[in-house]
């Protein structure tokens, strides 16, 4: 009973993960992107907690708490602070073409489902079904990095890819060894801090956070 109940909960959370990845892709406002990103972190922590409870894996509890603090609170807060200090929190980022992006996202999800199916059949873990969703979320994060124009949302896309890799790790192996997880967590934290510095550097150098502006500026430099 507990097994099937845990499975249902993990499946439900996996579905929500996919939904959040789509929502991240469809948001116009920078602040709502950050809200959805924080929600993704919380979902991730909840999944880790539930898998820990279902498999009686105590190390996973620690990583669940770490995920909640780091990805549910600290990283979104760091990004939020950067957005506030750069005064871009009211800006609306025009999406390239939201309908085409959504259709591409659906195609990517279908593709990852097709890819993962043979792997799923070999696995005997309770979380094997979430592998396809983790792969889809990863590709959706990459799609977000491709379709966005602003540096901040591209970074959120990158962090979303990292989130889904963590989700895949929980799904595929019931979590990595704790040492590795702590290492990865600190890497991500340092990366986020460095990205925060980068935002200010980009802003002072190019007067804009749009990636197109950088290319334009570089081209002008070449010509000069």
């Amino acid at each position, binding site marked *: 009973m507990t097994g099937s109940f845990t*499975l*249902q*909960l993990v*499946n*439900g959370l*996996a*579905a*929500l993960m*996919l*939904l959040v990845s*789509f929502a991240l892709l*469809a948001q116009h406002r920078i602040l709502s992107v950050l809200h959805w990103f924080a929600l993704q972190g919380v979902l991730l922590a909840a999944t880790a907690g539930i898998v820990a409870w279902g498999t009686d894996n105590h190390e996973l509890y620690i990583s669940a708490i770490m995920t909640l603090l780091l990805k549910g609170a600290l990283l979104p807060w760091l990004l939020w602070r950067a957005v506030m200090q750069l005064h871009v929190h009211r800006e609306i980022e025009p999406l390239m073409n*939201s*309908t085409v992006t*959504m259709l591409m*996202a*659906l195609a990517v*999800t*279908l593709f990852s*489902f097709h890819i993962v199916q043979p792997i*799923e059949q070999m696995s005997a873990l309770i979380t094997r*079904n*979430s592998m*396809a*969703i983790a792969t889809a979320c990863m590709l959706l994060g990459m799609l977000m990095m491709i379709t966005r124009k602003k540096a901040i949302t591209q970074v959120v896309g990158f962090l979303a890819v990292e989130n889904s890799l963590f989700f895949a790790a929980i799904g595929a192996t019931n979590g990595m060894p704790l040492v590795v997880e702590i290492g990865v967590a600190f890497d991500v934290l340092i990366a986020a801090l460095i990205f925060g510095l980068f935002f200010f550097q980009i802003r002072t150098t190019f007067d804009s956070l749009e990636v197109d502006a950088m290319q334009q500026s570089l081209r002008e430099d070449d010509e000069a």
Partner: protein
Amino acid sequence: MKAVLFQLLQALLLVVLAPLAAGFVATCKARLQNRRGAGLLQPWRNLRKLFGKEVVLAAHASWIFRVAPYVVFTATVMAASVVPALLVSTPLSLTADVIALVALLALARFFLALAGMDIGTAFGGMGASREMTFSALAEPAMLMSVFVLSLGAHSTNLTTMISHTLDTPLVLQPSIAFALVAMLMIALAENGRIPVDNPTTHLELTMVHEAMILEYSGRHLALMEWAAMIKLLLFATLILDLFFPWGMATDAGLMAMLLALLCWLLKLAVLLLLLAVCETSLAKLRLFEVPEFLSTAFVLAFLGLLIHYMLEVSL
């Protein structure tokens, strides 16, 4: 014989109750806005008044304009009569196919749009073109959302789908939640409720349904408005059938039917109250944001479909 009688009664119930349901939503909305409201029976009074008035026809109106109200009303009533409200399996249950249902509604919409364009006024043409644009997006999304449930039941027949839901034990199925949200969004759009269209306005440049029936009067207008009310009740019943069928009667016994009626009214009241809250708290979308709203519904329904395959098939 008894089942046939129940079938007729059920269809009649939907047709008669439709104005009351519309009145219920209007009253709930009025209360939420600190008004007293015109009462539950106001839509019935309106219809009676309109049936008593003479029909004023434009000089250029063709036969399509005169025929359209009857076609729209008949198609909607036919659609309403195949949807099971109380009894799961009715004599007409073989025809209670979701695709046929969508086709009947599409027929009604087709004539509505034709009638809107027939007179040649600017408003009618505008309303018709908008309605067709939105429906082209809403229809696939609706079918997609229904298909999520049909995948589990292996059928698009409503009766089979309801029996399947009643037979399976209650488990957490994320795909159905996705389909439900998509279906609710589409129901709002298809019935011209607030985030998409404002049902209480006659003087807005962004109106859709009202723009098409602007030239109608007398009994024609009454039939058009009645059809719209039936459509609202039809969608509500469809959502209840597909997602919350518990309490429906599986045999035509009197007690079971009474219980089913009670359950249905209760569920309906909750759903319509939800609609009133939704309409009061949301603002109308800009016209150009409606396609985005509908494509969100489509994406949700499609995600439901994918999630069904990813997570639930191997269970």
